[in-house]
């Protein structure tokens, strides 16, 4: 944070050059953390508002909120642990984490262990009424694996070899393939974006980057043509173009989401007052469509604040990537930037009717335990990259 300069408090003991400057707590990126916590608090309120109307008359109206707060607590703990990891340790264990993520991705296919939610067979049942979404863990694993492969044995001066690039692409393609079989289209799109971003930032020759983007677009087109995407996936992916015309379920969702957000106006209906939210017109509005809740109940002011908070998170992540002192740290941070930005754009964009409807949560805001945990782990990794630089600065 040299650009911002350090405020020297009178009486403060000057730090000794060559050692860690300020210690763990001082070197953390607090702007990033405050933005993340603010999003989490806002998200909890929105989850509460969205879930109140869904519950049976004899159940606790806060039961969903309580579960949400438990997962937030666990997620913060995991993020804290992740911020303490050393590069060497991290790189050594990355293959193990990657392997575990692949195994977890395969478990939902085993009978009795998996759950299908909104057509995606992507959940593992966990005792205690919780469920685990392995594709969220895969996001962290793919970023770490690709960063490790692309930054291996290199100073910052040589470009990655074709072999390294192919290996990195392969390490992303395997989980993408499995997730495609689980019908989790949204995650596939995000992982694709992450892979392209990492190859690009790693300094791969331009032909690779252009070729990769071209392949992704071509792959999407071919998949639609050949019918690899099942009918409902296409419906979900295309219904956003013309929502008012047919009353299929995806179009219905897009339409109701837009009515909710549009109706919010500048100031919104007020918390717990949104007719679309409280009347349950918008489906899964505690998770995939949570943006409709802030849009309807807190209006433009509230939803713009939410987007700006996410923008602060992305800005801090970009700064961390920019300042990272080696390629590995930069790639990890860039991967997180690509992940968060694309997931935000996809999630908010589908609520606003400019992106296809897919089942992915809004980082830090949506209910959903695994997503909350993986995003907090990502924040912890960003802090690790930042702390690594701080510790090696003269």
């Amino acid at each position, binding site marked *: 944070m040299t650009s911002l300069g350090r405020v020297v408090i009178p009486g403060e003991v000057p730090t000794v050059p060559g050692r860690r400057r300020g210690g763990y707590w001082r070197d953390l990126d607090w702007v990033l953390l405050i933005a993340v916590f603010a999003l989490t608090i806002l998200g909890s309120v929105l989850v509460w508002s969205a879930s109140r109307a869904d519950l049976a008359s004899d159940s606790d109206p806060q039961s969903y909120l309580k579960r949400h707060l438990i997962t937030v607590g666990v997620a913060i703990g995991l993020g804290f642990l992740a911020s303490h990891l050393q590069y060497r340790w991290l790189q050594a264990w990355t293959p193990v984490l990657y392997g575990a993520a692949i195994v977890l991705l395969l478990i939902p296919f085993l009978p009795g262990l998996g759950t299908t939610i909104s057509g995606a067979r992507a959940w593992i049942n966990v005792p205690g009424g919780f469920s685990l979404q392995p594709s969220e863990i895969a996001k962290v694993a793919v970023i770490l694996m690709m960063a490790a492969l692309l930054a291996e044995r290199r100073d910052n001066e040589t470009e990655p070899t074709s072999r390294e690039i192919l290996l990195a692409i392969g390490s992303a393609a395997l989980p993408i393939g499995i997730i495609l079989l689980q019908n989790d289209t949204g995650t596939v799109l995000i992982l694709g974006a992450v892979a392209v971003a990492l190859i690009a930032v790693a300094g791969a020759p331009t032909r690779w980057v252009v070729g990769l983007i071209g392949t992704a677009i071509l792959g999407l087109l071919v998949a639609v043509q050949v019918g690899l995407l099942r009918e409902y996936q296409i419906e979900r992916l295309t219904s956003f173009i013309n929502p008012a015309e047919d009353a299929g379920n995806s179009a219905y969702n897009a339409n109701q989401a837009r009515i909710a957000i549009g109706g919010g106006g500048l100031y919104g209906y007020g918390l717990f007052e949104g*007719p679309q939210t409280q009347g349950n017109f918008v489906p899964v509005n505690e998770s995939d469509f949570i943006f409709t809740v802030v849009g309807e109940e807190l209006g433009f002011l509230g939803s713009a604040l939410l987007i700006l908070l996410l923008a602060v998170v992305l800005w801090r992540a970009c700064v961390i990537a920019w300042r990272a002192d080696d390629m590995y740290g930069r790639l990890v941070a860039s991967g997180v930037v690509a992940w968060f930005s694309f997931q935000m754009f996809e999630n908010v964009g589908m609520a606003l009717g400019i992106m296809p409807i897919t089942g992915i949560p809004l980082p830090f805001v949506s209910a959903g335990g695994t997503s909350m945990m993986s995003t907090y782990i990502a924040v912890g990794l960003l802090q690790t990259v930042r702390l690594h630089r701080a510790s090696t600065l003269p």
Partner: protein
Amino acid sequence: MRERSNLRLLILMVLVGSLVVTLLGRLYYLQVMTGETYRVAAANNTVREVVEPAVRGLILDQVGRPLVSNRTSLVVTVDRLALQRQADGGDGVIQRLSRILDIPAEKIADRLKTCGSEGAKPPPVCWNGSPYQPIPIARDIDAQVALSIMERRSDFAGTSARLEAIREYPAPFDVNAAHLLGYLGPVTEEQLDEQGGTTAWDRLRRTDTVGRSGLESYYDEELRGKPAVTTLAVDTAGRVTGTIDQRPPSPGNYLVSSIDARLQSVVEKELVAAVQRAQEQGYPGDSGAAVVIDVRNGRILAMASYPTYDPAIWVGGVTQKQYDRLVASDSLASNAMQGLFAPGSTYKVISTVAAGKDGFSLYGDYNCPRKLKLGTQTFRNYESAGYGRISLRRAIEVSCNTVFYGIADAMWERAGGDKATVSSPDPIASAARMFGLGEPTGIDLPEESAGRVASREFKIANWETKKDTWCRNAVEGYPETRKRDPKLADYFTALDKENCADGFRWREGDALNAAIGQGDTAVTPLQMAMVYAAIANGGTVYEPRLIKGIVSGDGAVVEEFRPVVKSTVKAPRSALRFLRESLPGVTTDGSARVPFAGFPLDAIPVASKTGSAQVTGSEVSTSWFAAYAPADKPRYAVVMMVTQGGTGSKTSGPGVRAIFEALFGVRGSDIDPRRSVLFEGRPQDALPRVRSDGTPVIPRSAGTGLPEARQE
């Protein structure tokens, strides 16, 4: 190389920035620039719920025999609003329905009127539900009739025929149990008001049918389950625009009762026999009740009330004639837990505990004269028998009133006589309350009576409510009665004058009456059964329970009910022990000797107490018989009573004996536990198994209690 990476990262940053700007721009467009149109759209959004009620759970007896089950029935319903839209107001449809269903047209018209509206017949003929709800007008119709109605939709506007699950009473061993099981009816306005404005999908709706009495009402939520609800979004034109929500039904749970159908059937028959015995003696014998309790846990094994009615009468709504007959017969309320009666001499166990607690010698001798004179009043023994100086045990055996009068009189004097205050000790009333009298037992049935304990508090409260009337009558002097019978009017006036002046006072006569369970004391037969169960088990007053567990429709155990201790009798152990020693003597050498003559009392000693309570306004006493057995290892407490039935020994005693014979498998003087009406000779603690398809497993040797043809 570093530069290339920097450039790429810069491009990524610009891309990220443009994504944020795109979202903000789109958001501004949707919310600020075009927001108003969406507000209108939101207002036009309405929902419609399609509700399919869950199948109601069964009620099983203690070994799994269904007491209440379901069957499907073809029902014809009429939507009144659709009828009113017809040019002729629906008269044509009603005429055609009358012809095809063979029901008089006026009956259909009466059924279609909402209760309380103009020209509506009183319930149950009028429609007691919501006017927006299709009204069932005929059940169990022929499939052919249903088909022709559905095919000729234009002739039968607003009419539909559909399959509906309705309650069925298989009646194993011909049990009746109407007061225990209860019945269903449309949900009431009060219930809807009570749940408030909740929009939860499992809320009560106007179209719901709920339990209105008995177990059906007490465990309504368990039995009802949760409906399948599909919530559709509907636009202003009524078009369905999408499905908001879909909830699968969860079928109602099964109640497993502690009632044994076979025993219940025996108890019901014996109660009717007791009533007939009363009538054969020339007494009215107008009502009665019988209760069998498992003394070790407070479970009710059988509970009968006379008169009773056919529970199936409610299915599909009763006719006016049936309803009038029901009300006239006084058979709707359960005498066993709602009827209040003077307990008579069965109450002497309470007085005995009070005496023991108050320092009277339980093993001393007491005078048993033929009568006791108090001022103008004379208090007599039954049939004015005198026994001289006898032990307290003997006084219980022969049910000597005057011994207990003497004890109560001494207690009354000790408390201060006429000058006593409300807080002065009243050992008999306190003993009664220790046994749970004067308050509901806590049985799992709605609308139980609390009963009352004769006491100073009661007299004062009673005087407060009645003094105005008494004092006015004392001044006016019953002018109406005076025209016909001046003497009677004088008597009434004098009585009211006295009551007006000091009707709050606990007089000596009140104290004496209280000692033998007469006067203001009123109990339910169930309360009395719980008193004898507490004596039998050493002083634990349980909350009586009709349900021992809840099982889901696919066989999983939802809940098992443990016995609930309501209170323990805080009396010297010696007093309870004394009672347990003395009560068997009532059966061998006392007032219950005759009905138990020939019963194998050596093997199965029976502790008992008779009661023949005098009731003001009736010449004939209330017949009571309370007992438990085996007296040395108590298991079952049985109470039977018949109003205006004569003596306890003659009318109720033989009934209680027959119930014990059924329980223990006694025939003549021969005992064979295998002959017991209870499966394996005892109440089953375990819940019966229910197969995953919802059919309960009944042990073969227990028997279904149904005729062969109906077992299919």
